[in-house]
């Protein structure tokens, strides 16, 4: 507590060193890993993102929506990458992208909101766990504070919990005067909740002061995340949110636009991180997949299994990991969805444990306390 309080009083005195970050003294060890979670809200269609174009039933089910293998990047096995993911494809070719298919959280119904809750809390059923797995990951880190940031004005559920985390997104609003901010800080001292939030906000603004990233477009978002993560004393965990994946209609057009945006974010993150990219792991995941067959309105409805995408220089990439269940009618989950064969929890537990060299068993029980006994996946990250 002491450094914080001193910092605030210092700031309140109106000294010019407003933006000195209190953790600056604890310079991070070079080579520290970074971990980024990008959530795809709305149930992203794994079957058209990492498309099983070699599955004999794929074209029958998808009809006009099917990805044409001639336009897509060929991946491992029967899979091809959606053509809008050009930069992601480049990462794959360089061994920096890994796709896990037919994966899902333990959630098996088709409500976005319950599904996102399970994905973000790490519970088995909706609303049984109150904080987020990404916040509990912070609690396993040696520094245990100032480790995580949400690139959004508010904190998404995956990052909510006991560990202090920050949030930031550029605004068009004018910066308040130092004088006013100091007074606000003093007024909040007797309010536990607002005091903690305010201290986080001040520290984060300090870190953002040198960043040139502005605005909210997908590339700027990646650039902004990179500007925080590349600071030696900055957070090592970040969360980004993407929405708009719920493609019940006009899917061909909408999914292309969504993936182009994601591709731009990933490329900007990579470029902005520079050498730190080699120490970085990015996981992109969604609450559940979409129906194996196209629906009657040029889209797909809520399904089950989907694909998770993992990027970064630290990833043992250039592979697709899938215990592929096949798309024949008999093999579909409830005769309509891609059957999940790989636990997304096991993927995330394995990734985070290897990224930060933590004990996999401890990570699994902390992040996914109620999970069935699935072992964290191994060998996803370079040693």
């Amino acid at each position: 507590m002491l450094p914080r309080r001193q910092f605030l009083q210092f700031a309140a005195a109106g000294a010019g060193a407003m933006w000195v970050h209190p953790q600056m003294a604890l310079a991070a060890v070079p080579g520290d890993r970074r971990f980024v979670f990008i959530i795809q809200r709305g149930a992203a269609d794994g079957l058209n993102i990492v498309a099983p174009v070699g599955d004999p039933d794929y074209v029958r089910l998808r009809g006009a929506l099917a990805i044409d293998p001639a336009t897509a990047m060929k991946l491992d096995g029967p899979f091809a990458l959606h053509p809008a993911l050009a930069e992601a494809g480049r990462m794959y070719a360089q061994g920096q992208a890994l796709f896990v298919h037919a994966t899902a959280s333990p959630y098996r119904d088709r409500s976005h909101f319950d599904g996102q809750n399970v994905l973000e809390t790490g519970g088995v059923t909706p609303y049984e766990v109150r904080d987020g797995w990404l916040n509990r990951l912070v609690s396993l880190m040696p520094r245990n504070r100032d480790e995580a940031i949400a690139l959004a004005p508010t904190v998404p559920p995956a990052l909510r919990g006991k560990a202090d985390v920050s949030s930031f997104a550029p605004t068009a609003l004018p910066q308040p005067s130092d004088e006013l901010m100091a007074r606000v800080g003093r007024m909040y001292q007797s309010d536990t909740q607002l005091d903690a939030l305010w201290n986080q906000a001040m520290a984060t603004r300090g870190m953002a002061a040198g960043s040139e990233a502005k605005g909210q477009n997908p590339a700027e978002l990646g650039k902004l995340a990179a500007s925080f993560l590349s600071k030696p004393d900055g957070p090592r965990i970040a969360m980004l949110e993407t929405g708009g994946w719920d493609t019940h209609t006009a899917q061909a057009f909408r999914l292309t636009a969504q993936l182009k945006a994601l591709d731009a974010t990933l490329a900007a993150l990579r470029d902005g991180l520079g050498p730190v990219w080699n120490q970085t792991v990015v996981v992109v995941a969604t609450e559940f997949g979409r129906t194996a067959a196209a629906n009657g309105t040029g889209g797909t409805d809520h399904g089950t299994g989907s694909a998770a995408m993992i990027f970064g220089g630290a990833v043992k990439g250039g592979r697709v990991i899938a215990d592929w269940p096949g798309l024949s009618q008999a093999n579909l989950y409830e005769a309509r969805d891609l059957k999940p064969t790989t636990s997304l929890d096991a993927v995330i537990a394995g990734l985070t444990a290897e990224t930060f060299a933590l004990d996999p068993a401890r990570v699994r029980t902390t992040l996914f306390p109620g999970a069935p006994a699935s072992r964290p996946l191994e060998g996803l990250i370079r040693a």
Partner: protein
Amino acid sequence: MSLTQSPAAIALNRFGLGARPDDKPPADPKRWLTGQFDRYDVRPAAYAALPDAGKAAQDYFQALRQRLTARKDAKAEGMDPKQDAEAKQARQMIFLQTRDGYRAGVNARMAAALGTEAPFVERLTHFWANHFAISTEKPQVAVFAATYEAEAIRPHVLGKFEDMLVAVERHPAMLFYLDQFRSVGPDSRAAQFVAQRRPDKTPGLNENLAREIMELHTLGVRTGYSQADVTEFARALTGWSVGGQGPGGGGRGRFAMQQAEPGQFQYRPNIHEPGARTIIGKRYDQEGEDQARAVLHDLATAPATARHISTKLARHFVSDDPPKALVDRLAAAFQSSGGDLPTLYRTLIDSPEAWAPGAGKFKTPWDWSVSALRGLGRRDVGEMDIAPMVTQLGQPVWKPGSPAGYDDIAASWAAPDALMRRVELAQRFAANMGDRADARALAGVLLPGSVSPATTTALAQADNAPSALALLLVSPEFQRR
């Protein structure tokens, strides 16, 4: 942290939209609230000035047709339709029309909140609009967003839940938003017709609206319905569409559709799935439009719906985790009154839990903006543009990004950056006021009997009038209700 609050402050802030500088603290807070049922203005001037759904639709669809024609012409002339000047102009017009319509709508919503003499009922219109959320990522939804609130929500806020439900599910904004307008019964006449000629283009079901009605609008998630019930309900709903858009609007001979007003609800027998449906164990053998209407009746009056609505209402007014006894009491009132909303509100007002001192709710960005502008004495929007302002605070109006609407818990809004933005905006509001208001006096009016010593000290020590005003607007008491 718990703050002391007087009953008058609770009525003004927790139930209402925040006090104005010339408000007297209500002597009888409960009567002040119930009395608003008679003072509520369904169609205040700001909303009345907006075009209705029919006009908005006509303009929008006409612009769409112009763009289509321009593109076709360009193609016919061997030009790239994307580069064609006329097509570009039409596209720009659609963009401006949509954006300006949306902004005018948001300004009208704020004007109604600032000018109202029934702030409790006005808050309820915001509550219901969020319960039956639409989201304006789709341009057709943006065109109809304000009229949706004016036509489907506002007229029913003091009526029966079922009437609001039906108005909502028939409104073009909802039919567009959750894709219902183009959902086609696989065995309907239109589908059969297409299947014979263009089997690769056969239209079919879209279960989006059916699922969200059950999960979000009525019963609530995990209340016992199955995937099969969702699909059956989607079949029953086929044919609920919008004039001028979507499949099944043509038809020949005796199946020809009457021309419906564009942008108005239209039932289309040509795309309705024939036959009886079974939903949650009950058989529905009604013909046509009445089938889904009968399902809606049963959903509106189901005990699970009473509980779902009561939980959300209690969460909105009392605390993020509402007491079970309160929810039980509200659900019983909902059930016994047949979903009579004023009965539900009276039960809430009569519940001691709702008057517990200690502000249990962190204001949403919308709440905070409305109360700040009211607190500064604004009675109209004037030159302000509300939509981009509330967007900067993190809660764009009518754009929650999901049909679940915005979260109604502190964890979703109380965050470091979000707090900083309120300070930024408070400073801007206060700067515009100059020294026309004394924050020390104003605090007692806006938060009667409820200002903490820490805030009193902060206001007294501020070095100038705008600083003190900004501090009041971001004080712990003013951030919560």
